């Protein structure tokens, strides 16, 4: 005990004597503007107020909220930064870190921080750097990036060829949907499961979806993830900078041509002739695709904290008798698939389980459900969006990759009972990383107790999805909010006749007006003669 006490007491004796010197030293240290003690102190305040909940007080990426997130928050101690302008394995520049604070990390739980002023952002960056010894005396410099040779058809062709030669498809899949053969075993540096980017969803790219950003990610790699740097391959002549740019343009070209604006209303186009039953039927081109965002169900337990499905493209057609819906969403696994068993267990173990056993022995199937109110509502009232409630039920059109389709009634999550007598029909196919499912049902018919739809009526509709290979089932799945579907009415004969009648009526009025004017004129002349 004495040995512990004596240095402290001798320090106490020394402090008064040294005070002026210490004060002078502190002033000298505080003077430099960038990364000074002053910055770091302010940065600490900002950090502990806004960042520590996820990234941890000590910066190790292990704050109280971390176990609810996948991918996990950045570990500032290990300092593996995904999005940088510096070479693979190196630290980011201040500008790189500033950019993340300005735009966030799309596809993760890291938001942008417009509420922080520029000085606050500078300060917090200075503080974050103090967590890692790697930043001591470091001076990270951006790489030299080759100039963009431009896009165009030839560039895309060359990019596709290089995409194949460089084996990008091993992880990202042949059609770029993140479903390559290596995906079930992908892990980040913490040995947590991680997905390969789906190139049809560039708005989720961590480092941005433009060709330039894609090119940079290929040159630097995404540190801490399986995405390697191709800088060595360029340096050794395996691929030229132009070819790598072409790959970037090709990857950027896989983005959907239609911007995924959140749809409020799905319009079911009325078609003459037969409704398409197959997901790849040409007739679907007549329908307008609507993008419906989905999010993890986090109200009831067990929650879906990092769900696979985060959006669906919905198309609807009807012929006056039946309604056909075509639903399309990305899912790298065609569940049940035993090659994903390990992934399923890892996902179940990586996230807070809310006390549920999320690691079933058998591989699970994929699923989807379309939700309507059980009855057409009066006014704007709609049932509870999580499969209704005991006194306000919903109708569900369910699809399961193993069990097929069924019509059911929901009275809350997990309170689902099958309905008899319906004519719900379905066809599905999994194609290189995405599901395409077609559901058709009589508009007016349906099972006993199911909704009776009607043309011309705006009806609430919502969607659910489950990825079996990511241990998603029941409450643990993706859900949309209520939006609406409208079944277009047939073009009425009035549409043609009304304008004709209007023209005839106007012409008649004009005639009457002209005649009466002529009559007045004649009468006036007669009076003058008299």
């Amino acid at each position, binding site marked *: 005990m004495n040995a512990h006490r004596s240095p402290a007491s001798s320090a106490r004796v020394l402090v008064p004597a040294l005070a002026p010197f210490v004060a002078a030293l502190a002033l000298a240290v505080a003077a430099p503007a960038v990364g000074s003690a002053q910055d770091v102190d302010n940065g600490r305040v900002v950090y502990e107020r806004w960042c520590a909940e996820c990234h941890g007080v000590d910066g190790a990426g292990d704050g109280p909220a971390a176990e609810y997130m996948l991918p996990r928050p950045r570990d500032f101690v290990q300092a593996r930064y995904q999005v940088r302008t510096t070479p693979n394995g190196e630290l980011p520049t201040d500008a790189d870190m500033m950019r993340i604070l300005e735009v966030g990390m799309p596809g993760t739980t890291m938001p942008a921080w417009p509420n922080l002023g520029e000085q606050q952002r500078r300060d917090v960056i200075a503080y974050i750097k103090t967590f890692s010894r790697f930043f001591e005396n470091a001076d990270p410099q951006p790489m030299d990036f080759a100039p963009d040779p431009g896009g165009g058809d030839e560039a895309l062709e060359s990019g596709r060829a290089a995409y194949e030669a460089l084996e990008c498809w091993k992880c990202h899949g042949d059609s770029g949907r993140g479903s390559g053969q290596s995906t079930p075993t992908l892990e980040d540096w913490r040995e947590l499961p991680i997905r390969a980017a789906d190139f049809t969803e560039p708005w989720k790219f961590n480092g941005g979806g433009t060709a330039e950003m894609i090119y940079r990610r290929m040159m630097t790699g995404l540190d801490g993830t399986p995405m*390697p740097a191709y800088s060595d*391959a360029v340096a050794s002549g395996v691929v030229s900078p132009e070819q790598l740019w072409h790959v970037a343009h090709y990857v950027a070209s896989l983005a959907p041509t239609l911007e995924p604006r959140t749809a409020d209303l799905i319009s079911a186009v009325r078609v003459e002739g037969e409704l398409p039953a197959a997901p790849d039927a040409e007739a679907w081109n007549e329908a307008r695709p609507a993008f419906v965002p989905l999010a993890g169900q986090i109200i009831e337990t067990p929650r879906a904290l990092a769900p696979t499905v985060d959006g669906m493209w919905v198309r609807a057609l009807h012929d006056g008798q039946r309604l056909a819906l075509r639903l399309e969403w990305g899912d790298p696994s065609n569940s049940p698939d035993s090659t994903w068993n390990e992934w399923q267990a890892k996902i179940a173990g990586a996230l807070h389980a809310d006390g549920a056993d999320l690691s079933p022995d058998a591989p699970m199937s994929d699923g989807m459900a379309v939700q309507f109110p059980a009855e057409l509502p009066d006014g704007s009232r709609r049932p509870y969006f999580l499969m209704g409630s005991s006194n306000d039920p919903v109708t569900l059109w369910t699809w399961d990759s193993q069990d097929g389709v069924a019509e059911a009634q929901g009275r809350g999550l997990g309170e689902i009972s099958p309905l008899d007598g319906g004519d719900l029909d379905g066809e599905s196919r999994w194609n290189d990383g995405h599901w395409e499912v077609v559901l058709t049902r009589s508009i007016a018919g349906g099972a006993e107790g199911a909704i009776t739809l009607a043309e011309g009526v705006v009806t609430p509709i919502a969607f659910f999805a489950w990825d079996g290979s990511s241990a998603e089932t029941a409450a643990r799945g993706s859900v949309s909010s209520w939006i609406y579907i409208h079944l277009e009415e047939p073009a009425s004969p009035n549409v043609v006749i009304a304008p004709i009648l209007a023209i005839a009526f106007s012409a008649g009025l004009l005639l009457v007006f002209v005649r009466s004017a002529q009559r007045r004129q004649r009468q006036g002349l007669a009076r003058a003669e008299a």
Partner: protein
Amino acid sequence: MSNRKSTWLALVAMLAIGCGGDAGDDGADATDEQQADAAPVVDPAVAATISGTVTFTGTAPEPTPIDMSEEPVCADKHSEPPTSPSVKVSDGNLANVFVFVSEGLGDMSFPTSSDAVVLDQNGCLYHPHVLGIQTGQELTIRNSDDVLHNINTRSTDNRPFNISQPQAGMESTRSFNTAEVMIPVGCDVHGWMSAFIGVTGHPYHAVTADDGSFTIEGLPPGEYVIEAWHETLGAQTMSVTVGEAETGAADFTYDENAAYDPVPMTEPLIVSHDGHGAG
């Protein structure tokens, strides 16, 4: 087994490059290169040696088969079905154990060997599976397979790297500036591929050969702690004192039922040797 023979085997194991396993091809030239790896500035007349054998008692686990069917280019290179090199026991001897001087060298520093250590990817396996390297020493990473590999290190004391090698014959060079036992290496394209790199601030490290033997040569006489490290069985230490020109023995035994220290993946820092290489 004669001492000379075991020394030779240990040397091969310690420095082996590109010649391990079923799929090995051209190890000869690289091995010759490594033979020139001379001991550091210790008077050869007094230099001591520590050698030994690592044995395994009990029932050795059945080798885990590796399913390479998704990569025919690699599967075709194996005449026998490939198995995991993790716990490799033959006649009770344990291979792929990293043995190194963990204490006793004090502040001594040693010149870095100018010879590169080679990590080869052949038949979708790393050769060697376990290797030792000195801080600042060059590591040449070679792809002998005509498929994409990425080399992803999960170091914590050194900056990690993750680079792609999409073509056969491609080579990349890296080095480590901080001692770290061990650095796991993996390929995300082929989840079964795994190697371990032991980085020490000195050249006194070895990897046990198939017969479990190792030799550490050219040591200054002194008292050392020798550590044996195995990726799944754990770590053990032993004190060994060697006098001038002596050969000390350090035999380790792993028992199937015994629990050893958990493998120290992030510590200890043995000798920090900053200032070499880019890491």
